[in-house]
């Protein structure tokens, strides 16, 4: 046995042994702190992070996330490109302007790193300019919201906390009806059934989003039509008076497909014992529907983007629903803003999709690559430029490249990637957005 094999095996030991030591060290630390406090001694120890920085979602991705996400892309024009770990040459950039960003001619000879797979179409129509926009948060009417989601069902328990992001506002957690839970605060709503099969449906929806969107279709389910599911969700959206929604993406999950996806995935109970998740039956099949929010025909990014400067972090905006034949099992909307917005200065889209792609390739050719990355999407989106006091935010148009990544080790083990990957390129200059900070 080699040292590496030994350590790899030890690395996989049961969680209970790891937790045993963690608990011991924790108790020892608490005891030591108590003693220190009692003796009024000041002991200075090196601080590796400051809690007030580390706890915020706005903490930096820094090198691991950036490098792990590091990607290079290749230009593609209206055609589907797939490159499988072979040294490739990037098609040239014709630089003919924003609206022709996906047209390639000639050969510029940009090399593509070997740990890159491109699996994307570039958008054909790009505006020549788009305004920076300022959005105001959406506050919900308490009574109206409860009427929509709870109706006349019995409330079994209710608590409230301080809102996550809004001073003087509350976040309500309400349990009602048959195991249903409603959580809401300004801009966010989550209403879901709280049982085992719903947890399975929720996990599948999450997996579809993270990796398997392409492997699921929007075909009709046997038990109920897609149109019914869409109508149910649209009904809620209408009642909430959210008008700036884009085209929904819908995926149907049959019991067979759902069980296939969840095969081998386990969950743990409160004692740490692993259990196989319950299997879906035909009654549990569902449609998973996602709506983007759209301003000026440009979607708000649905990707959580952290930044060292918390004010520049972007929180995803979307509406999502899991709909079964019995109704909406899960409805979530996050970071919903008023439909009216303030347009500020115009941003010229000097850099089309392909120019942006070429800029990205150049950037990643010059930086260290840690993961294998597949890019599968490219679109112009709005992301947060600044979160203002009072929770309004200013958003800028930007090229978003999306895909997923896998480490070398995971790839060698034949694992499927489950981590999403995003890159951003400023459309007016072709600069890589991450590099600005």
């Amino acid at each position, binding site marked *: *046995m080699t040292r590496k094999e*030994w350590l790899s095996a030890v690395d996989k030991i049961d969680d209970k*042994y*790891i937790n045993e030591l963690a608990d011991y060290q*924790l108790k020892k630390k608490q005891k030591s702190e108590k003693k220190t406090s009692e003796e009024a001694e000041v002991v200075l120890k090196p601080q*590796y992070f400051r809690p007030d920085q580390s706890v915020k979602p706005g903490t930096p991705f820094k090198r*691991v996330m950036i490098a792990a996400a590091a990607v290079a892309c290749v230009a593609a024009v209206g055609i589907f490109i797939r490159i499988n770990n072979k040294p490739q040459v990037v098609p040239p950039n014709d630089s003919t302007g924003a609206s022709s960003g996906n047209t390639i001619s000639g050969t510029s000879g940009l090399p593509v790193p070997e740990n890159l797979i491109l699996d994307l179409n570039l958008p054909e129509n790009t505006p020549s300019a788009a305004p920076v926009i300022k959005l105001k948060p959406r506050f919900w009417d308490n009574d109206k919201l409860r009427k929509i989601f709870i109706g006349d069902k019995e409330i079994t328990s209710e608590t409230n906390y301080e809102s996550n992001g809004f001073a003087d506002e509350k976040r309500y957690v309400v349990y009602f009806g048959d195991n249903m839970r409603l959580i809401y605060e300004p801009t966010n709503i989550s209403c879901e059934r709280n049982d085992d099969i719903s947890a399975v449906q929720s996990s599948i929806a999450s997996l579809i989003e993270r990796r398997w969107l392409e492997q699921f279709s929007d075909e009709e389910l046997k038990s109920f039509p897609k149109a019914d599911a869409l109508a149910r969700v649209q009904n809620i959206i209408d009642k909430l008076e959210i008008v700036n929604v884009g085209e929904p993406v819908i995926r149907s999950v049959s019991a067979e497909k759902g069980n296939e996806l969840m095969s081998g995935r386990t969950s743990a109970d409160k004692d740490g014992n692993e259990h196989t998740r319950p299997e879906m039956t035909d009654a549990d099949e569902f449609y998973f529907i996602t709506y983007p929010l759209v301003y000026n025909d440009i979607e708000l990014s649905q990707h959580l983007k952290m930044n060292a400067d918390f004010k520049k972090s972007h929180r995803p905006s979307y509406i999502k629903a899991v709909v079964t034949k019995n109704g909406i099992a899960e409805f979530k909307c996050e970071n919903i803003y008023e439909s009216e917005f303030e347009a500020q200065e115009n941003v010229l889209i000097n850099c089309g999709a392909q120019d942006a792609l070429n800029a990205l390739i150049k950037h990643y050719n010059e930086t*260290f690559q840690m993961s294998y990355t597949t890019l599968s999407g490219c679109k112009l989106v709005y992301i947060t430029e600044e979160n203002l006091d009072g929770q309004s935010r200013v958003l800028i148009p930007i090229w978003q490249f999306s895909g997923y990544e896998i480490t070398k080790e995971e790839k060698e083990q034949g694992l499927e990637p489950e981590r999403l990957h995003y890159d951003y390129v400023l459309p007016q200059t072709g600069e890589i957005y991450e590099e600005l900070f």
Partner: protein
Amino acid sequence: MDDQKIVCMFLERDESALREVSKKYGAYCTSIAQNILHNCEDAEECVNDTYLHAWNSIPPNKPTALGAFLGRITKNLALNMLESLHCEKRGGKDVTLPFEELDEFISGNSSIEGECEFNEIVDEINAFLQTLPAKKRMIFVARYWQCEKLSEIAECFGMAESGVAANLSRTCKKLKDHLKRRGFDV
């Protein structure tokens, strides 16, 4: 705050969960990252990323052993970071953490064939650990899972460094015998 309550806060998307995790497990995670990376800044970055990973993975995960859950994330991130730093410096060679004392117990020749055999060895190590007294088990885990220095383990358990070394040596020898008896070429 107990772990179940913290996990519940994650599930309810309450950002205070991150504060609580930092308060309770910050030092623990930092210690793991620091043991592997030996660099304060990298360790800080690694721990921050641990919180982010936890935030993104709960839900759908509902960890019942939160310390182990966070510890695993930290360790994986730290090893990935170490590998990337190593690759930058050494041109892509594998990283093996320096536990020289192990050379006394293992042949150094690759002997595991396939995932099945690997999983069997893991099962046997788990079974072996179950037979150990808690203190010996924790010392073993501290050294080979948490990658702590002998001096740190000695301080943690109120022992002399030489005592820890002797303790580990005996445990490793027993584990080697245990694996050999079950037909593994160690």
